[in-house]
């Protein structure tokens, strides 16, 4: 249903700084635009994006309506140990999506 695209290396050296990219399909409706019937389309955005490494939070970003539709975020992380990198998006209307990727650190 929800489409998420994660771009992360599958392997990394210990201590290496790796780039993580995450894209999610979402309208990010601002709540400031009138629709075809002239009424304001209610706000529907993703408010929080959190990334975890084996359950420990490593990055967090709070969005505003000024984030473009289909939010894309690229950030960096230190490869500490093998395991899973988790991504979680939460927002209006009970929106919650989680995705994770495995990484081998050696």
């Amino acid at each position: 249903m929800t489409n998420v695209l994660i771009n992360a290396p599958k392997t990394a050296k210990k201590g290496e700084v790796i780039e993580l990219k995450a894209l999610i399909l979402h309208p990010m409706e601002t709540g400031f635009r009138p629709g075809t019937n002239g009424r304001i389309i209610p706000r529907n955005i993703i408010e929080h994006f959190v990334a975890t490494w084996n359950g420990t939070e490593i990055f967090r970003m709070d969005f505003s309506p000024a984030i473009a539709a289909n939010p894309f975020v690229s950030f960096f992380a230190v490869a500490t140990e093998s395991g899973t990198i988790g991504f979680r998006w939460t927002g209006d209307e009970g929106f919650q999506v989680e995705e994770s990727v495995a990484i081998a650190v050696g």
Partner: protein
Amino acid sequence: MPRTTRRAFLAGTALVSVLPFAPARATPEAMAAVIKEVVGDNVIREGRVTLELPPLIENGSTVPLTVSVESPMSEADYVKAIHIFNEKNPQPHVFDARLSPRNGRALIATRIKLGDSQRIVAIAETSKGEFFSASADVIVTLAACLEDIT
């Protein structure tokens, strides 16, 4: 008390109908107020922060933005938070990001919406409690937040 003539009434309605539809908007003052909320009484210094946006934007609904901060990102000295603000979108916030030494590098790239030509401000907060900023002026030819045509 003057009687309302039909002519005056019609002139009045015409005036009301041409009043521009003006939704609440962030202003440079509103942005300064929000920045003050984040920074408090600390001094904001220029430098260390690099904010990259295309100077001329054809479509305000998807604008690539990259912000990076020079920092060792060690336990002793790292970038704790990066905030992006704008002057003329309906709200002054764009995003607030929280970082830690686990990030290794203070660089974030994303895509934002811009409602008008304006100045974008990035503020970085370090673990030592210092604030650094950078800004970028952009020209937007087609604004985001237009009517939904789908």
